[in-house]
């Protein structure tokens, strides 16, 4: 057992840390990100700078723009980026975490050359295209249809809450290619250029962030945009979700640090109840950090962390709720003041977080679905 990092790992982390602290574009990117609107011009610049150093995809092979390092390095890079980005950090990005993961395992050589290098250099990103009005937790129920027309696939239907659509270049689309029981056996994955005629993106303002619905009306998708084998999409999705549920705790920890600082300077830390609550959160944060680091540790040993990723997701998302609510209690009446209000405390951060954090318990599989996974896959309880 070892709960420390090697000198090489610490050096790697420090380099990223210093870059983000000092780079001229980093601050602008942080503001864009915090506004909840996704990538703006500064973000694209900073992504390219990070990409040029291989820091977006340290665990990918060198030939695809990675550094050929163990997954633990990716976790360290993500920790630094999330800590820096703070609020608005969305954890794993679709291009790196989902598209990249699936293409590395199942993509054609042509697809790998076409997309992986550009993803790793920070030039492009993907919008996750899974959720539909009738396919949330029950993802296998998705119905957007992709018909094989010989030369191309013809796609018709609707997606919901596809967050990155307004700034990403590509859609990472899960579509039905066969009507079959069980339903998950008829789903395929596609890469779709979001500028393709027939695609309409309609923005949705959600609590604390911007997202979209997206309509496909007779959209022609070239044959070479099918990823892997036809009707194997759901397996790839599940495989990549274990990666997407990789969280780092650094952003939330940053918020807790601010809260602890606030308690000290405001004198509230003398209150025994507040002391108890903050000590408890700091303990839970440490557990979340260890749960988070278990994922790359397992990946580096060739293990697939499905229930472990579910444990992390539940623990992290529910801890986030506890942090935000404790902050609201400590801030007491000030907690409701928005960022730009007179008298707002801590830059109104916890007012924003109070609503924005709700996404955490829902997205990428609700905490309830995660508990199902833990029960069935880790504990082997009977499905019926």
């Amino acid at each position: 057992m070892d709960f420390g990092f090697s000198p090489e790992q610490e050096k790697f982390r420090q380099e990223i840390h210093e870059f983000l602290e000092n780079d001229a574009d980093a601050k602008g990117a942080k503001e864009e990100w915090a506004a909840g609107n996704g990538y703006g011009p500064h973000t694209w610049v900073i992504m390219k700078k990070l990409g040029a150093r291989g820091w977006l995809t340290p665990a990918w092979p060198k030939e695809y723009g990675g550094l050929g390092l163990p997954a633990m390095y990716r976790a360290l890079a993500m920790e630094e980026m999330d800590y820096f980005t703070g609020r608005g950090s969305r954890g794993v990005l679709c291009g790196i975490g989902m598209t990249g993961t699936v293409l590395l395992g199942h993509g054609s050589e042509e697809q790998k050359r076409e997309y992986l290098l550009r993803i790793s250099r920070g030039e492009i990103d993907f919008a996750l295209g899974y959720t539909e009005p009738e396919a949330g937790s029950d993802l296998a129920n998705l119905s957007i249809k992709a018909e094989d027309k010989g030369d191309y696939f013809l796609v018709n239907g609707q997606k919901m809450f596809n967050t990155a659509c307004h700034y990403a270049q590509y859609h990472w689309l899960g579509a039905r290619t066969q009507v079959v029981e069980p339903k998950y056996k008829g789903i395929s994955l596609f890469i779709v250029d979001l500028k393709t005629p027939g695609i309409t993106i309609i923005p949705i303002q959600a609590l604390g962030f911007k997202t979209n619905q997206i309509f496909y009306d007779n959209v022609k998708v070239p044959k070479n945009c099918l990823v892997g084998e036809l009707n194997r999409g759901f397996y790839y999705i599940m495989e990549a979700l274990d990666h997407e549920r990789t969280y780092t705790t650094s952003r939330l920890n940053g918020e807790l640090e601010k809260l602890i600082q606030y308690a000290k300077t405001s004198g509230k830390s003398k209150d025994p109840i507040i002391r108890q609550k903050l000590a408890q959160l700091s303990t839970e944060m440490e557990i979340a950090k260890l749960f988070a680091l278990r994922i790359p540790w397992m990946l580096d040993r060739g293990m697939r962390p499905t229930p472990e990723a579910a444990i992390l997701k539940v623990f992290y998302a529910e801890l986030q709720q506890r942090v935000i609510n404790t902050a609201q209690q400590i801030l007491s009446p000030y907690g409701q003041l928005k960022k730009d209000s007179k008298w707002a405390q801590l830059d109104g951060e916890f007012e924003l977080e109070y609503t924005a954090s709700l996404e955490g318990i829902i997205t990428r599989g609700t905490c309830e679905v995660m508990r199902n996974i833990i029960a069935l896959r880790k504990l082997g309880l009977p499905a019926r």
Partner: protein
Amino acid sequence: MDFSFNEEQEMLRKSARQFLEDECPKKFVRDMEEDEKGYSPELWKRMAELGWMGLLLPEEYGGLGGNFLDLTALLEEMGRALLPGPFLPTTVYSSLPILHYGTEEQKREFLPKIAEGKLIMTLAITEPSGRFDEAGIETKAIRSNNDYLITGTKLLVPDAHIADWFLCAAKEGEGITLFLIDAKTPGINCTLLKTLAADKQCEVILDNAKVPARNILGKSGAGWEIASKIEQWGAIAQCALISGCLQQVLEMTVDYTKERMQFGKLIGSFQAIQHQCADMAIDVDAVKFITYEAAWKLSQKLPATIEVSRAKAWTSDASRRVCLTGHRIHGGLGLTEDHDMQLYFRRAKAMELAFGDGDFHREIVAKELGL
């Protein structure tokens, strides 16, 4: 980062599990609740032969030079088996402080005997104040030539009724001094207390018990530094016990959901049950990691105050949640005395309370955070 035990620790764990499954079945655990001694000298001897008492001691004192992580692997198995007896009082609470703070003469006197299983010791700190801090000590030590006369009441002293020696904290002037006291010293009176877990905790009354000055452990008046170190070691040892105990509760409960039918279905197929089991599994994983991290820090001789207190705060609370959920899922059956569930439920409470519960340790964490 490495979350796994090494080969040696895995071998120790397997060997300990097999030994305890054979030698410490639940019938034995129940018998020991009724037994006045509360342990089996025969089993004690065999554990000593396996080298367990000397795990943390260096070879020169008959030990094996193991570290806190090795101990954690062993304690998890003891917690799983609910092994009764004076293992922790003798080793972690007594032999470890002697090793770290004793004179060479004291080490030679006590440690080899402990390693051989020929000496049982225990720690007498807690008093009627029920506190775990320095202010809770009222027992007095008064110097008289080359001896001290010690007077006071110690409570909830584990296994005092069978101990050969006590490590006892007493107030000397304004400071606290630790004394090694022969249990046969005149003026010492030991009474078994009736406890929830039917473990053997005692009241020890010292009435002018005469202790030679050479039996001071560490420096006169500087005993609380040692005592707080012991509390740290004791707390993490309890965490390891709890970890093994809860792992077994989880396994027992999950197994039960796979065989118990209600409404024509296995109860494990109901999501209400599944989600409760998932929450138990999350708690148990968290207990392990937070305990292992603190034990690792101690094994690396790194400062571990906040880690130990985080571990004890979390495991103490988790033990209640996991045992309670275990009981809920076992239903009425788990409430019968014939069922093992209630053994775990009662024992876990004793572990939770030993060396400070969640609230106590959260306050330490708060201090460490600079609050």
